[in-house]
């Protein structure tokens, strides 16, 4: 992120322009609250951001004045104060909660007059930037929940050569049935991009996973310890609502008997560390999808496999990087940092340039799923078309269009299908 190097002082200086003060003054005068109080508070809010003032002091300094000015009313600010009243720690969270809302900052200030400034909404964002959230190092556009482990991947599409080794490794590791491509690699052409490009598609292990929301049974769940989105094969009723709700098309239902019988599965690869049956191919009648190898992460397959996935191991191009997306030191984040450093822009001569020339994206982020796979490379545009890749699924003994296999099992399929 471009601002993460800036010190708090710089931020403060940046903000404390005359222009800013004039703007705030104007805004305040539009509302009918005490402009001076608001301005004073706003300045202190910036001191708070800069660490010159601690939260408790700030809070104490203005609590009474604010109550005087606004009374305890039903404005969001009242809630913030109440929250702070109960527990000082949560004051910050209250501010964050407000900030999280869809309120346009300027709108909010206008509406709330001095209260808006009291909350220092404008400066609040600066505090986040100044401190540089853990996410700041990873990618510009990212999630804002930064607590605990969240497994995910950084996949460098510029390194991918479309060999499908990951696809094969995944299907062998998990014994998935033909065409249930938990790992899937697109080769595509796009008018906006030159030549053939690749998109490596796993489950995105979304932080706000629609598949989990819609599941009527809790079979589809997000592991609290590491954020992996998994399916409990013993609970799933096979309604397929998760497959319908997932925007990425990563779910593969077990329509008939699995190609590999249960007896041939390694028991250490079926149950995860919590003893829930979430790994390997699903049994008949339930849903399966990319798991990001929970039995590996739980150490059930040996110490050396912790923190790895089958696809990552198989990728000789080093395109796949699995790890904790919330940890700056994790493999994916380190990789990203390295790539960024290698592609730094000359900011000395051209101060207006971005820090680096690396393009990253998360797939369909605009749908609000908060995906945890970050891609390095270009995003397929709206008119991108999948084309035959350098290596076909058939070449590596896999099936691309699973329906062709499934149609063999369709009753009367040969007759009318």
């Amino acid at each position, binding site marked *: 992120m471009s601002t993460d190097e800036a010190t708090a002082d710089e931020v403060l200086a940046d903000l404390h322009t005359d222009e800013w003060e004039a703007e705030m003054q104007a805004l305040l005068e539009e509302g009918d609250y005490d402009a001076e109080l608001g301005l004073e508070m706003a300045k202190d809010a910036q001191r708070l951001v800069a660490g010159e003032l601690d939260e408790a002091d700030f809070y104490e300094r203005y609590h009474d004045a604010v109550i005087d000015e606004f009374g305890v009313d039903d404005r969001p600010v009242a809630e913030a104060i109440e929250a702070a009243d109960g527990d000082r720690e949560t004051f910050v969270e209250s501010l964050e909660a407000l900030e999280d809302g869809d309120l346009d900052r300027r709108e909010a200030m206008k509406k709330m007059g001095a209260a808006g400034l009291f909350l220092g909404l404008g400066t609040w964002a600066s505090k986040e930037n100044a401190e540089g959230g853990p996410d700041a190092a990873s990618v510009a556009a990212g999630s804002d929940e930064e607590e605990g482990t969240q497994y995910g991947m950084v996949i460098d599409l510029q390194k991918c050569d479309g060999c499908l080794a990951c696809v094969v490794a995944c299907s062998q590791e998990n014994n998935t049935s033909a065409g249930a491509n938990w790992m899937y690699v697109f080769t595509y052409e796009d008018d906006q991009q030159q030549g053939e490009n690749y998109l490596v598609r796993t489950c995105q292990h979304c932080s706000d996973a629609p598949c989990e929301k819609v599941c009527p049974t809790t079979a589809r769940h997000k592991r609290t310890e590491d954020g992996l989105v998994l399916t409990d094969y013993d609970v799933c009723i096979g309604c397929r609502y998760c497959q319908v*709700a*997932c925007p990425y*098309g990563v779910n593969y*239902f077990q329509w008939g008997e699995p190609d590999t019988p249960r007896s041939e599965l390694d028991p250490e690869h079926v149950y995860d560390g919590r003893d829930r049956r979430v790994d390997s191919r699903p049994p008949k009648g339930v849903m399966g999808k990319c798991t990001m190898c929970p039995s590996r992460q739980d150490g059930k397959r040996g110490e050396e496999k912790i923190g790895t996935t089958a696809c990552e191991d198989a990728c000789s191009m080093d395109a796949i990087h699995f790890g904790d997306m919330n940890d700056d030191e994790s493999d994916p984040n380190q990789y990203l940092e390295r790539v960024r450093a290698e592609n730094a822009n000359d900011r000395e001569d051209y101060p207006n340039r971005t820090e680096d020339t690396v393009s990253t994206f998360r797939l369909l982020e605009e*749908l609000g799923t908060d995906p945890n796979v970050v891609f390095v490379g270009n995003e397929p545009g709206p008119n991108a078309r*999948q084309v035959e890749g350098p290596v076909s699924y058939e070449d590596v003994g896999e099936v691309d269009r*699973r329906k062709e296999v499934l149609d063999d099992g369709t*009753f009367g399929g040969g007759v009318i299908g």
Partner: protein
Amino acid sequence: MSTKRATESDILRPLSATSKKYYALVAVTLVAIGLFAVAWGLQLRDGLIVTGLADWGSSGGVTWGLYIGAFIWWVGIAHGGIILSASVRLLGMDRYQPVARLAELLTLAGLTAAGLYIIIHVGRPDRIVTSILLNYTETVHTSPLVWDVTVITLYFVMTATYLALTLRYDVTRLRDQLPDRFEPVYKLLTVGYSEAEDEVVERMVWWLALGIIILAPLLLHGGVIPWLFSLLPSMPGWSGAIQGPQFLTIALTSAIGGVLILSYAFRTAYDWDHIITDDVFRGLTLWLGLFTLLFLWLQLQQVINGVFAAPIDQTHAAEAKLGHPAYWISMGLAITTLAFIFAQTIRPSLFSRTRSVLAGVAILSATLIEKIFFVVEGLLSPTFELYHAVPGSYVPSPVEIASLIGTIGVVTLFFLVVSKVIPVVELHAIEAHEDDGDEHGEAYEYDGDGEEPTADRRTSTEVNA
């Protein structure tokens, strides 16, 4: 217009008279159900692979198809049925009182068929109870499917209560003339009955009707059922606030279609031309026209919104819809029906009961095709369409088609059986005809053929005198 007087023995006729045709029809429904059972057995043995379904995405299929489409269709018929019956009670549309109970029974039968579809749709039906119930408190917050199950159960209970309450009145009064072999059923239905409760029951029924009228359109068929689809971020063909009203109009048209068919069948079988009069058919047909018009209007809204400067994914979804023959078959049936109903209002001589029933059948086919197509088209045109196997393909397999035949068989058999146990026309309906102007409502009739059944057209002329 008939000049016969409706009597108690008229409405009791189905309970005693059993024709050869009746047995033949029972046999047909049993064959249909047998077929369904065999198909389902196959599916249980081999898995859902016997259907024409597959995964959407790289696989090139759709994951929901006829089962879910038919599920919504039956739920729609059920919800429409109960809305119809509740309006009769609430708004005093006494003309339709003779078919009110048929509509209520249709609701129970429709919900049963819908319930069957939930069971056959899933991959592990054996787990439905444990997996859904045990996690209910958690999942009810977020899963539209759980909302559906909740509300459908609620509706089943409400409708059954409603039916049971009105039945108590009838069964007590007709007890001597009812067949003795069902004695236990009647005993159960009338347990603790006293005449003093009539007034209370009538009030309760009124409140239940009010609850239904408020809940069904707003929350049920205009709510949780469309939300199953419209709340998802993944399929543009399903999204949009219009799905609520759209589903509701489909439910109402389907239910009227169903009631038309039932009315026709019972009237023909038991010579009920003086009970379910031509006016009932005329009126129902007009209502059918009104709701069909709304249905088509909302379709137009959707299409226009999809093709005019819409975001890319929505445009693709709308274009795919317009390019599919199933859509046009459905719309064609609805448009033709509407044209006929319009023509009939202008030229009343065009009316005949058979034509009304045909209109009902046409609409039911249109809505069934539309519902299945709706489910499938959504999955054929996802937002993420990079897969070369998108749009995929889907042809329902014989196993799925057997389920359709089977559930129609189940619903038909339900009516065949129920009509042997309880009177399917309320006593109130003929009482109103007998002593015109009593508390149960006047026997309204509109003057002149082929005019709209609006309140201001009603006169309280003696009907059957």
